[in-house]
């Protein structure tokens, strides 16, 4: 699915958005529709259920030009990998791809939300098989302690910059934002981006 540029860009940044549920395409939804009560092992009840359409997710990205990657001769003493192209031939074609720079969550509900993770799965345009996955958030610091720095209050719009994730030409990115409410409702916002 190619995303549509919904609105004016800030600088050269493009953003795209769908609500989770509501008018989002069915393919963007994951999880079950039922409310399911589960118990973690210390018997704390968690309501593990998908969010109603009260959260909007937006992905920010910028165009980026990629140089082609040329196959090199193996280092002396190492045999040539027969599955790789001949040295000197193009391994990864150059061209224009994108760099994903951030996400935004708009909390239209009544509960405090936490952005628990942002994951980018890269796959070839002509295949659904991911070849690389990047957990882009939480992202800073050599060591983190989880706390409430990632919460979005009801009515708030929360922009989260991530370490840029490159999506080269001929690849697509599936961006998944995992959110959870204070009472234990879980949801995912999934966007497919094709440069």
């Amino acid at each position: 699915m190619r995303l549509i540029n919904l609105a004016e860009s800030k600088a050269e940044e493009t953003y795209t958005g769908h609500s989770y549920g509501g008018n989002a395409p069915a393919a963007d939804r994951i999880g079950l529709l039922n409310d399911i009560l589960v118990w973690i092992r210390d018997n704390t009840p968690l309501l593990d259920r998908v969010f109603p359409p009260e959260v909007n997710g937006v992905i920010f990205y910028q165009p980026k030009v990629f140089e082609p990657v040329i196959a090199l001769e193996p280092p002396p003493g190492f045999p040539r990998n027969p599955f790789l192209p001949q040295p000197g031939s193009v391994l990864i074609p150059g061209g224009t791809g994108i760099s994903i720079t951030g996400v935004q969550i708009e909390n239209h509900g009544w509960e405090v939300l936490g952005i628990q993770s942002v994951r980018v799965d890269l796959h070839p345009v002509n295949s659904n098989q991911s070849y690389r996955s990047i957990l882009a958030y939480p992202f800073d610091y050599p060591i983190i302690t989880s706390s409430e720095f990632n919460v979005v209050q009801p009515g708030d719009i929360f922009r989260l910059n991530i370490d840029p994730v490159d999506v080269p030409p001929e690849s697509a990115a599936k961006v998944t934002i995992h959110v959870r409410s204070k009472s234990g409702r879980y949801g995912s916002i999934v966007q497919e981006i094709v440069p």
Partner: protein
Amino acid sequence: MKRLSMLVMLFMLALPSACVPQPDGEDMPEIGIPVESLNSQVNAFAPKGWNTFKVGDPITLEIYVIGNEEIIFPPDFGIRTFLYRDGNWTEVVESVPVAYSHGDVILSPYRGNLFVSGTAVAFPILQNANDLMLLRIFVSGHIYRNGKATDEKVGAYVDVILHP
């Protein structure tokens, strides 16, 4: 008629678990942590709102510390995935590489605050994508005391069933 459709529905609900081989209760892969210690300090949980539970999709876990001490985890939470097949647990060694933009993670006891948690990802590459599959996914770390990681290894596991 109503009774028949109810029976069919019950049968459909029971079908997935009936088709997945059930391991013996004491059958456990060896990961270097005593079985009785697993899930005592840490808890792993695979929320339905975060996962499709389809073969080929990643599995995202939420990790809580349910003990009283901080725990330090490697960036990938020491995640290991085992597949139950032919009466044995076999480690799934092929997986989509997952890159982490953060370093080690120190998790505090969650003490009822659900936002104090970590996120781990398993992305196994599984053959025979047409079968139901039972996976046991482990995470592990070390007790973090006085600003240092100790030798006390702790961990948790969660079982998930993947559908074709």
